[in-house]
């Protein structure tokens, strides 16, 4: 199924859990935070949170800034 990750289209398996998506992106354990369709997904829910077609995922980190 197709989803969007940080604004880019991506093909992932049906009903993939957020934790698995994070793992395939090699981001497990990194200092990141995640939104699904504009809503925060706490790290504690990465395992339960399943993704559906057309979902928009945002993965963010801290960067230098004023």
């Amino acid at each position: 199924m197709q989803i969007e990750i940080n604004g880019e289209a991506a093909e992932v398996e049906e009903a993939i859990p957020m934790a698995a998506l994070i793992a395939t992106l090699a981001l497990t354990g990194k200092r990141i935070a995640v939104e699904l369709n504009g809503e925060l997904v706490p790290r504690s829910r990465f395992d339960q949170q399943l993704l559906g077609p057309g979902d928009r995922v945002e993965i963010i980190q801290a960067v230098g800034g004023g």
Partner: protein
Amino acid sequence: MSQAPAQSDSLIIAGQEYGSRLLVGTGKYKDLAETARAIEASGAQIVTVAVRRTNIGQTPGEPNILDVLPPERYTILPNTAGCYDVDTAVRTCRLARELLDGHNLVKLEVLGDEKTLFPDVVATLAAAEILVKDGFDVMVYTNDDPIMAKRLEDLGCVAVMPLAAPIGSGLGIRNPLNILTIVENAKVPVLVDAGVGTASDAAVAMELGCAGVLMNTAIAAARDPVLMASAMRKAIEAGREAFLAGRMAPKRFASASSPLTGLFF
């Protein structure tokens, strides 16, 4: 009566005590090593970071700003820089809180336009209200407008941060009397945020009674950022001590410093 020494003159924000009254941003540096050296030289304990999309798969193993600024050592102040509406500012704060394991302190800025980067004060008020209700300790960037500063304080912001001049302009304090009025009206710390260009600007802010100064470009864009960071640390301390000492009243004409009695000529 002598004032307490500078060491015990702490800045208190949201119940936390800080020895340094200089807050620094982490943008625009050449690299993370220079960022770390400049921040070390500044003596700052509160450092701002921005929140942006992670590069997916492009730069694995790329060092992160939080690797050189460990949250165990610094108070990380995530900001909403680049947000032009209430929703993105609130979302950014919620993401930042998750990123920093529930840390509630945020710097709110909701910008009005790209040319001036002046705050959209209507949107800033609305976002501040949502964030305060959601349990955030909000340090808020605003105009040098005493009325708006008071409104933001009344909403429950833990610090009010009027600009000295446009972000990144280095123009110094354009409206010192308004900054003074904001300081006099406030019960929460007032920090000048944005527009400082050099050390004397920072000292002026402190002499006006500001609780601190937040800056980024003035340090990062100096020819020698590490040296400027050190200059800013001293300017903040000097300005604070001058404020506490209470300056002499300015006079129009001269007043001799040596005794006028005992002249032998």
